[in-house]
C-alpha cells in the first residue's frame, strides 16, 4: 500500500488530498471535495498531464504572437517537446479562436488551438 498527497490544481479551492494505492492497485482518496480532485490525483499517480498554453509567432497579425492552448491535457513529460515544436511554427492572420493550429501535436492525440481571434495588421 502506498499513500501520496497531491494538491489539486483544477479549481481555486486547491484541495490538498491523499491518494491511497492499495496492493490490488485499486485507489482510495481522501480530502478532495469533488470528483475532479479524485480524477486529478489518480492521473498524477499514473501519468501526470498538464494543459499547454504558449504563444506562436504571427507574421502579419495585429500582435506579434498568438496565444494558443491545447484542447486537452498533454503528458507532462512531452510538454517541452511540444513547446519547442510550437516555437518554430509561424502563422498568418486572419485566425479565429478555436482554429486548429497543430493537429495531434507530436502524436499526443491533442490539438493545439488558437485562444483568440487575430486580425491582419492594417
Amino acid at each position: 500500500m502506498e499513500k501520496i498527497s497531491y494538491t489539486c490544481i483544477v479549481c481555486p479551492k486547491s484541495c490538498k488530498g491523499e491518494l491511497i494505492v492499495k496492493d490490488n492497485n485499486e485507489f482510495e482518496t481522501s480530502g478532495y471535495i469533488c470528483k475532479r480532485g479524485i480524477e486529478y490525483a489518480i492521473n498524477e499517480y499514473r501519468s501526470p498531464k498538464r494543459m499547454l498554453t504558449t504563444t506562436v509567432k504571427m507574421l502579419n497579425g495585429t500582435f506579434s504572437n498568438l496565444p494558443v492552448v491545447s484542447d486537452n491535457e498533454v503528458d507532462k513529460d512531452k510538454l517541452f517537446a511540444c513547446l519547442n515544436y510550437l516555437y518554430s511554427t509561424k502563422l498568418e492572420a486572419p485566425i479565429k479562436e478555436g482554429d486548429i493550429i497543430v493537429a495531434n501535436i507530436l502524436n499526443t492525440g491533442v490539438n493545439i488551438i488558437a485562444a483568440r481571434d487575430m486580425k491582419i495588421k492594417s
Partner: protein
Amino acid sequence: MKKLNIDLIIIGGGPAGMAAATQANDNGLEKVLIIERDCELGGILQQCIHDGFGLISFKERLTGGQYAQRYINQVEAKGIQVKLNTMVLEITSDKKVYAVNEEDGLLEISAKAIILAMGCRERTRAQVFINGARPAGVFTAGAVQRYINMEGFLPGKKAVILGSGDIGLIMARRMTLEGIKVEGVYEIMKTEGGLTRNIEQCLNDYGIVLNLSTTITKIHGNKRVEGVTVSQVDASMKPIEGTDRYIECDMVVLSVGLIPENELSKNVGIELDSLTKGPIVDENMMTSIPGVFAAGNVVAVFDLVDYVSQTGVIAAKGAMKYINGTLDLTNTYISVNSGENVSVLIPQKIRKSNLDNKQDFFLRVREENEKMKLETEWSDKLVQAGKFSMVKPPEMIHITLGEKELAQFTDEDICFHMRKES
C-alpha cells in the same frame, strides 16, 4: 468638439465592462457605448494566456483570451457601440464624459448613467520601498506578461520574482517556459499570496523555490540589473541582520499587489473605501454619485474574473433601473460592516427597498483558517450564511443571500463574521 447622447456609457472594455454592456443590451437598452483606451476589447485578459478562467461562468477551463473572446463575440453580435483607442479625460457629476481619440477628436458625451470599469493597476517598487539603484530590468509582473505574451519580447535572462501573488506565480512558469531562468520567488509575508494550485503548477512543477518571510532589500547595477540582495524578515517584516544573500540576475519582477484605478472617480468626487481603494458601492454597485455605477476590479481587486463579470451584470441591471426611474434613491442606507475575520466587503451599504429576491456579497477574510462558518448579524439576530472547509485571504468569498434571509432584514446595520464552527 463632437457631442453625443448615450443612455449608458461604460468606461473600460475588460471583463466587467463587456459583461455590463451585454447585460444592458439584453435588457433592451439600445444606446450603450463602451469606451476602451486600448486598441481592442478584453483588457488585461488578453495578456493572460494561461488557463483557469471561467470555471464558474462557463463551467470550463478557459484561457484569458478565450474568456474575453466569448464576450467580444457577444458585443459584436449584439452590435454594441465601442470606441477603441479612446481615453476618458474627465467625468462630471451630471454624467458628462470627456474623451479623446484620433478619429473623433475631443468628445463630449452626455449619458443617463455611467458604469466605471477601469480595472486596476500594479503596485510599483517605490510602494514596497525596495532600496538600491534604478537600472533597466525592474518590471511589474504585468508589464513582463504583456512583453512576453503579446509583443514577443524577452525582457531578461535570469529573473528574481518579488511577491507570491497569482500574477507572480503565473509569470514564474511563463518565464521558465520561455527559457528565462527563474532564480526564486521571494515573499515578505509568512504565507503565500497566491492560490495553492498556482504554487503547485507554476512553481513546484518546475522546481522553483518559494522563499517566505524573505524580501529584496537592494537592487544592484546602474545601467541594467546585475543582482539583488535578499534578506529574511522578522515578525514585524524588518530585515534580519546577517541573513542577507546576493543573487545574480538581470531582471527583477514585482508582483506586489494591485490597486483599483480610480483617478476619474476621485476627480469627480466619488467616495472611496480606504480598505478596497475603490468606490463605496451599494446593492446595485452604485457609487456615491447617483447614476454612476462601478464594476469589477475598479471596486476592489477580485481573484476570479467570473466575479468581475458578475459585478458588471449587477451594475448594468442597476443602471437600467436608474435610467427607467425605478430605483429608490431616497431611503436611507443600511450599512454593511466587516466583523470578525472579515476584511474587504462589497457592497458596503444597501437600500432595503431596492433589494430583489436575492443579494450578492463578496468578501475576503483576514486570516487563513479551517472549518469556518459565515454569520450575518443584525440587531441581535444571527443567520448562518455559509460553511467553509477552508478560508484564505487571497480567495474572495462570494455568497448570495436569498429571499428567506433577506426577509429578516430590519433597518439596522448588518455585520458579517467568519467564525470557527463550534
